[in-house]
């Protein structure tokens, strides 16, 4: 129970640190995507002034960068994440 809480807290800290490593554009986009309730793509498009069609690809790129950040990859290496669902698309190289 406590152990689980500690792991969650560490994971959260790693995720936040990773988020901090991202470029401002990615931080803006991801902030909007994790908002509760999430805004529509139309709202995101209007706020960030990017075409609706590019939100999906940018989302994927930003998340791939998030995975590759030092903070998150270090945490992943240490904690071998529970593979609840195997990544279907595999890693975006690099």
């Amino acid at each position, binding site marked *: 129970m406590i152990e689980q809480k500690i792991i969650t807290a560490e994971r*959260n800290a790693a995720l*936040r640190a990773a988020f901090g490593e991202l470029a401002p554009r990615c931080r803006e986009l991801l902030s909007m995507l994790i908002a509760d309730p999430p805004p529509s793509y139309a709202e995101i498009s209007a706020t960030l002034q990017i075409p609706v069609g590019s939100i999906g690809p940018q989302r994927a790129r930003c998340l791939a960068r998030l995975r590759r950040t030092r903070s998150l990859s270090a945490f992943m290496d240490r904690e071998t994440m529970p593979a609840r669902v195997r990544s279907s698309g595999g890693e975006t190289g690099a």
Partner: protein
Amino acid sequence: MRDGWDDDQLLAALGEAVRARQAVPAEFIETAKNAYAWHNIDAELAQLSYDSSRDESRSAALRSEKASIRALTFTSAHFSIELEVTEGSLLGQIIPPREGTIEAQTGAGATTAAPVDEIGFFSIEPVPASPFRLHYRAAEGTDLVTGWITL
């Protein structure tokens, strides 16, 4: 990293992480505010000068007793407060005796007030949740706070 989350899971985890940070400090901020609220109180600070649980000679002597009462003493330049923690209450004695009021304030901000009688005795029920501190005010203007107490 081979095993991991797909994009939706990663995004959900990130959202959780960001919200967790927003959620945690609420408690901390409250406790910190309450701690600081006492900071500028114009009162004498009474420091812990005796704690039965750290008194080895006493605990050795009483080891056979079932329910030993925890006794604490707080001392300032002019006063001391002797406390006894029983199961349901906090009994205390102000030395030298002065009539007044005593208030227990917990780290979470809850307060319980009790009168201090003319022989300096008081009783606070139930025992405040730890950590807490006591604030004693006597009619003639004595103002005394103890350090934080964790039982």
